[in-house]
């Protein structure tokens, strides 16, 4: 009997160890994959830069060559033009082509004094070159007064370009392509989405929770409402997306918004998050000691005064963690947003136009003909870090709350 017991104990233990090992392994695997793939593409600059690359042509008025020393920080692979204080490098891109990138521009380089030569609103305005831009063509003037040009479109290498510039007299114009691949637009759209969603969902959710917990009679109807809300929390988000298109789109359309928009997305998410906010706020209200309510009422405060002066302020930390939880959900949501906000990545998002959140941008860059794993993982890193910070903050708030009430 003891032997049998030993064997069965061993089996059970082995199963638990194996199961926990598998789950931890999966977690480590995911993180390792995302960080190893994403870190190569991740760059703090991508948080502010555009996703789409743009072609620019700039012209120079007084392109006098000077003499600039090559900074020591630039490696041997950088071809440096002493006359203009600019460094170029040959970089292979993810799509397999070679880029001729601008990697350094001296602060007083004549290249900083260019003006935009492309027709449009910014024609004639001064324009500085983003680092990482791909040089298509630089047209320069030789000492005999003739014009010549070098650049990526002519198949020149960085060394050829730098050498050609150093024997020129002045630069006439430059065509280049901005690097792109940034998430600035999506980050902005995500922030707008968070702000608008909370604006819609928080007041409704908090007041609904107050009604359910503090005011509603404890009868069958209240229980029905509560279980409906619980059920709503389990509805897949894509169904909320459908609802957004079918039910909410006509509402935003009535205000003259012709397409899917951040506004529509935030309305949809607000409805999706209502159960989360109601449930968490209710839980925060449950934790508030009944002594506070009794004490307040016994001092001749009305029920409403009790709720708004004593109960709600005491529940504030709990409500705050509901907010943070909601922010986490908004950042991570994609299915509902694909329907209601569209999948076109906007560099300058506005409330009434479609845009992508960070999560949807991952979907967008992965759903094309050549999926961009590097960028997708880099965005994943951003999302993971934000969610991690949010979760830590929630833990901190909850711990403080527990300490406060147990005292």
């Amino acid at each position, binding site marked *: 009997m003891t032997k049998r017991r030993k064997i069965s104990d061993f089996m059970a233990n082995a199963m638990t160890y194996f199961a926990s090992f598998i789950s931890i392994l999966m977690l480590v695997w995911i993180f390792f994959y995302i960080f190893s793939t994403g870190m190569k593409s991740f760059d703090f600059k991508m948080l502010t830069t555009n996703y789409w690359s743009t072609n620019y042509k700039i012209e120079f008025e007084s392109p006098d060559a000077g003499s600039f020393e090559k900074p020591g920080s630039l490696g041997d692979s950088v071809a440096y033009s002493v006359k203009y204080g600019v460094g170029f490098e040959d970089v292979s891109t993810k799509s397999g082509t070679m880029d001729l990138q601008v990697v350094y521009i001296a602060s007083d380089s004549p290249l900083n004094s260019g003006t935009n030569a492309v027709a449009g609103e910014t024609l004639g305005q001064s324009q500085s070159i983003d680092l990482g831009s791909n040089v298509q063509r630089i047209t320069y003037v030789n000492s005999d007064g003739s014009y010549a040009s070098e650049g990526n479109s002519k198949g020149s290498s960085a060394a050829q370009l730098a050498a050609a510039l150093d024997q020129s007299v002045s630069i006439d114009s430059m065509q280049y392509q901005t690097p792109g691949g940034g998430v600035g637009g999506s980050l902005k759209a995500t922030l707008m989405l968070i702000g608008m969603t909370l604006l819609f969902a928080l007041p409704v959710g908090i007041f609904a929770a107050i009604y359910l917990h503090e005011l509603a009679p404890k009868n069958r109807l209240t229980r029905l409402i509560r279980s409906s809300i619980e059920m709503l929390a389990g509805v897949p988000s894509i169904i909320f997306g459908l609802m957004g298109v079918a039910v909410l789109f006509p509402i935003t359309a009535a205000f003259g918004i012709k397409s899917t928009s951040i506004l529509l997305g935030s309305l949809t998410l607000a409805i999706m998050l209502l159960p989360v906010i109601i449930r968490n706020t209710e839980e925060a209200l449950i934790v508030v000691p009944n002594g*506070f*309510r009794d*004490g*307040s*009422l*016994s*001092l*001749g405060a009305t029920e409403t005064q009790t709720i708004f002066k004593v109960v709600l*302020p005491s529940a504030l930390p709990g409500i705050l963690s509901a907010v943070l939880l909601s922010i986490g959900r908004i950042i991570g949501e994609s299915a509902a947003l694909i329907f209601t906000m569209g999948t076109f990545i906007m560099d300058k998002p506005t409330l009434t136009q479609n845009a992508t959140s960070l999560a949807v941008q991952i979907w967008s860059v992965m759903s094309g003909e050549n999926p961009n794993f590097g960028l997708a993982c880099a965005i994943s890193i951003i999302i993971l870090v934000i969610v991690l910070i949010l979760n830590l903050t929630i833990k901190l708030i909850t711990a403080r709350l527990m300490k406060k009430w147990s005292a």
Partner: protein
Amino acid sequence: MNNIFTVKDLDLYYGDNHALHSIDMAIEENRVTAFIGPSGCGKSTLLRCFNRMNDLIDGCRIEGNIEFRGKDIIKDKVDTVELRTQVGMVFQRPNPFPMSIYDNVAYGLRCQGVKDKKVLDKVVEESLTKAALWNEVKDRLKSNALRLSGGQQQRLCIARAIALQPDVILMDEPTSALDPIATSKIEELMESLKKDFTIVIVTHSMQQAARISDFTAFFLLGDLIEMNSTKEIFHLPKDKRTEDYITGRFG
């Protein structure tokens, strides 16, 4: 002597549970009346009828009447908010709000719409002085009330109640969560408070009832067994059950 509360044929039900059986009693003004009895005998329940705090409990039903200064307070149309400003209450566990000491004491008045800083300052000082707490907290009125010790918190709750200048203060086992030193301070305080207020106290400690009260009512299983002056109850109890209880034979 004036009777401030007159209870006539009061029955109270929690759902199907008949918690108080046709209680008749009178509470005298400016006296300390103690309710004693074993747990679950209905003494706290009766106390909570005096300021209608039982309204908050679902399924609670009251029959009969209680007159407060000749006015029935069990009827539905009684303004409970108004009643509770006249009948204050101190609870078993000190329950100061998580705000500053000053805000705690000023809470009741602010709820009634008093905004004048001078009036509030004056009332806060007076109330804390009456509650024998002023000297201990006058330098830190703005600090959080939850940082006070248990005994100080309970005196703050008393100060909070008397800030409204009620006629009656109901105390529901106010010292059961406190240590002996804090308890004796509260008891001294009650002695000085009875000049201005009528005090009704529920207590588990018979010594406490004997020390501080003028009248004592003994409850058992929802019945008022005996009510008399404290001296009589403790020296010449008329009922056998009262005698058994105060001599410690049960309870």
